């Protein structure tokens, strides 16, 4: 649930009353701006590392994340610590923690990124429709959004998970399906304010068939907002996906995911703390990277001439 400062609408959805509404700068310029600030650089680097690790996990990982080594567990059943074979030690079933971390990162990111793309599409669509057409469509869409906001996402997931732990696809759909609300509100507010400003001139220029053109114009305006918001949202989704695995409605074992690893590791906090700390730190770095990047992008875009 992150937000860009000035564009925050009122709770009921009416656009922000700030006289300094953002004239969003082109993304390229903003990126250049980001590259000059330490926070931005740090964020970009972290994000890159995380993405590279995730994308190239199959190549980088020394072992399969699923293979339980017979000598990964000692005779009493406790996992072996860091060694030449196991860079970060073994997990509770004798699997290589480092490989699982990389693959878990990959899993978490795949779900986050895909889910957020879906969320962005839905959010923009709903926001545009509501803001552009207004009237009863707006009212209905906004009420539906409010209803969905009022049902906590994790409970909704739990409700559905009564039957079974979701597959990857279902998980992505569920996460995507609960992450678009705020984006929709923001987009709607933006569209409303654009409509007030541009409608008259556009109508004058193009006559009756101005609908599509305004639509495209709206999308162009909203686009940078969506990028910033989605980047920030990625961090949230990563945490949410982990939370779902933590309570047991994430992906089926033995597929590794950061949340599962934290959950399993948390039982060993007293005996083998590294099992909980390592995935926790990994998740933290992902969140940090996305947030720094998103923040800098936002700051850069908010700069006014």
């Amino acid at each position: 649930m992150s937000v860009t400062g000035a564009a925050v609408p009122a709770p009921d959805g009416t656009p922000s009353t700030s006289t300094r509404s953002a004239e969003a700068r082109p993304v390229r310029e903003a990126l250049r701006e980001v590259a000059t600030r330490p926070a931005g650089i740090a964020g970009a680097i972290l994000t890159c590392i995380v993405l590279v690790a995730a994308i190239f996990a199959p190549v980088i990982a020394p072992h399969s994340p699923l293979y339980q080594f017979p000598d990964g567990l000692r005779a009493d059943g406790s996992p072996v610590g860091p060694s030449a074979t196991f860079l970060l030690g073994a997990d509770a079933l004798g699997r290589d923690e480092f490989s699982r971390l990389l693959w878990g990162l990959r899993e978490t990111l795949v779900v986050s990124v895909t889910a957020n793309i879906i969320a962005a599409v839905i959010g923009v669509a709903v926001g545009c429709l509501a803001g552009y057409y207004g009237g009863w469509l707006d009212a209905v869409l906004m009420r539906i959004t409010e209803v969905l906001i009022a049902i906590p996402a994790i409970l909704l997931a739990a409700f559905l998970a009564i039957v079974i732990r979701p597959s990857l696809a279902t998980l992505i759909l569920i996460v995507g399906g609960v992450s678009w609300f705020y984006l929709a509100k923001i987009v709607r507010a933006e569209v409303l304010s654009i409509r007030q400003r541009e409608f008259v001139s556009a109508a004058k220029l193009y006559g009756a068939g101005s609908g599509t053109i305004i639509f495209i114009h709206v999308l162009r305006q909203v686009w940078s907002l969506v990028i910033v918001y989605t980047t920030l949202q990625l961090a949230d989704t990563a945490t949410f996906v982990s939370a779902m695995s933590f309570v047991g409605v994430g992906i089926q074992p033995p597929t590794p995911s950061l949340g599962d690893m934290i959950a399993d590791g948390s039982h060993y906090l007293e005996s083998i703390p590294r099992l909980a700390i390592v995935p926790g730190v990994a998740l933290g770095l992902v969140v940090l990277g996305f947030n720094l990047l998103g923040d800098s992008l936002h700051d850069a875009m908010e700069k006014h001439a």
Partner: protein
Amino acid sequence: MIRAIRRFPVVALSCLLAGVTLAACTDSSTGQQAGQSHAGGVVTAAISTDPPSLDPAKGFDSTSWSFIHATFVSLLTFNNSNDVVPWGAATMPAVSDQGLAYTFKIRPGLKFTDGEPVTAQAYADAIERILNPATKSQLQAFYEIINGADAYVNGKAKNVSGIQVSGTDTIKFTLTKPDRTFLDVMAIPNASAVPPNLIAKNSAGFGLKPVGDGPYIVQSYTPGRQITMVRNPNYFDAKSVSVQKISITIGLAPQTELLRVQNGTTDVMMDNLDAPSYLAVGKNPKYSAYLHHFTAIADNYVALNMQKAPFNNKLVREAAAYAVDNSQIVKSIAGMGSTLTQILAPGMPGFDPSVQPIKYDPAMAKTLLKQAGHANGAGLPSLTFAVANGGFTAGENVAQVVQQDLQQVGFKVQLKVMDSGAFLSSIGQYPLTMGIYGIDYPDPYDLIASQFACAQIAAGNNWQFYCNHAVDQTLNSSLSLSLPAAIPVYRQLQSQILSAFPWIPLYYQTLYYFVNPKLTGFGANALYPFLFASWRI
């Protein structure tokens, strides 16, 4: 018989650790004076989830049984040696009619805490209540051996004709055929009397506010939060009960419970230690006095669905059994157990220590698969392996070990972890199911028949879908034998059943409990991890 998804599989006797038996009073070594009840101390305990039911007609897992056993008096009960002894009955019943009729005399002095007297009629009503379909009791099948039960259950009779009450203290049960396990079935906590007036007013809600006649009274019960029990001064043997109050917090994670017992804020951790907790405290000399352990009389195995491909082929089943590395399985549960070798578990009469476990032999498994026409898994679809979730994480871990072992010889296996409701509804759908069966009472018939009788397929306990009518017949006729005579029959039967490889045997679990040493008498008998009435602090 009942399939129990036991969160805490039933416990075997441990004579050494059972410091106190139910008849302790005659021995005054603990300083008790005859005739004076020694009451002392408050025990704090923590448990992660509510006991499924405190109602004698409903609870059938070992935790619920521990509570029911502490608050209600059944006609008979099990002592620490797993023998059936009289409790609510004054003496063992008189058996007549060639084993068809059992007559009990209720002992005097039993009183419900709401003042109602405990009469023979109360016992009769309680058994009928279990049989009554409206109660939705899962114990119903246990008492269908009583004459007239069938007619009653089907609505054709208003009462069970085989239960006859005469006077206030005599009750006679007539069975449809001789069955030595009837005594066991009258010794489980479910066969306790309940106050008829209260039940008449509110039967469905009785479990939330149980009223009994046993060693303890449930003073208050808030589901999800706490249970408080206090000593019942009107219990007929109150002087054998020591702890004045037991205060149980519900809802803490087992990990937190462990920390609390370690730092002294809680006395008893009522969840048994899982692998990570055991690794944290099991080898620490500081905590050696805190640990109590017993081997559960329960089978942990993978049920192979014999009615569907590929496990309808004996060679494939055999291959699966040889593929699994037993020692790795035991390692994955932190050594809290031993390899399962037969249907009867250690502690069950008839357990045969000479039976060897199935050797871990992946080469043999591959050969067998090839013989079956599936060299290296050719022609085998991906097999779904159903596992129940619900706090029992050992199931998930062990399942992953099994999955890898099977995959190494060519099977393709996919895990499907489900909550227990969905899991139970899915029995029969999938080729592989993680199975556990804990005993209901210490008679070998229970373990063998519940899991392998043809009728148990419909009843939902025979997850292998094993069905052999000759075996069924032997099982049925074994009930009329005495236990010592029946044991060789059961040993032969289990060997016959297992030679068909209906399951992949996994392990017998040893349950570890973490308890502050200032509490003595923790002990346990075959069926109750928590013998509240024998605790002393």
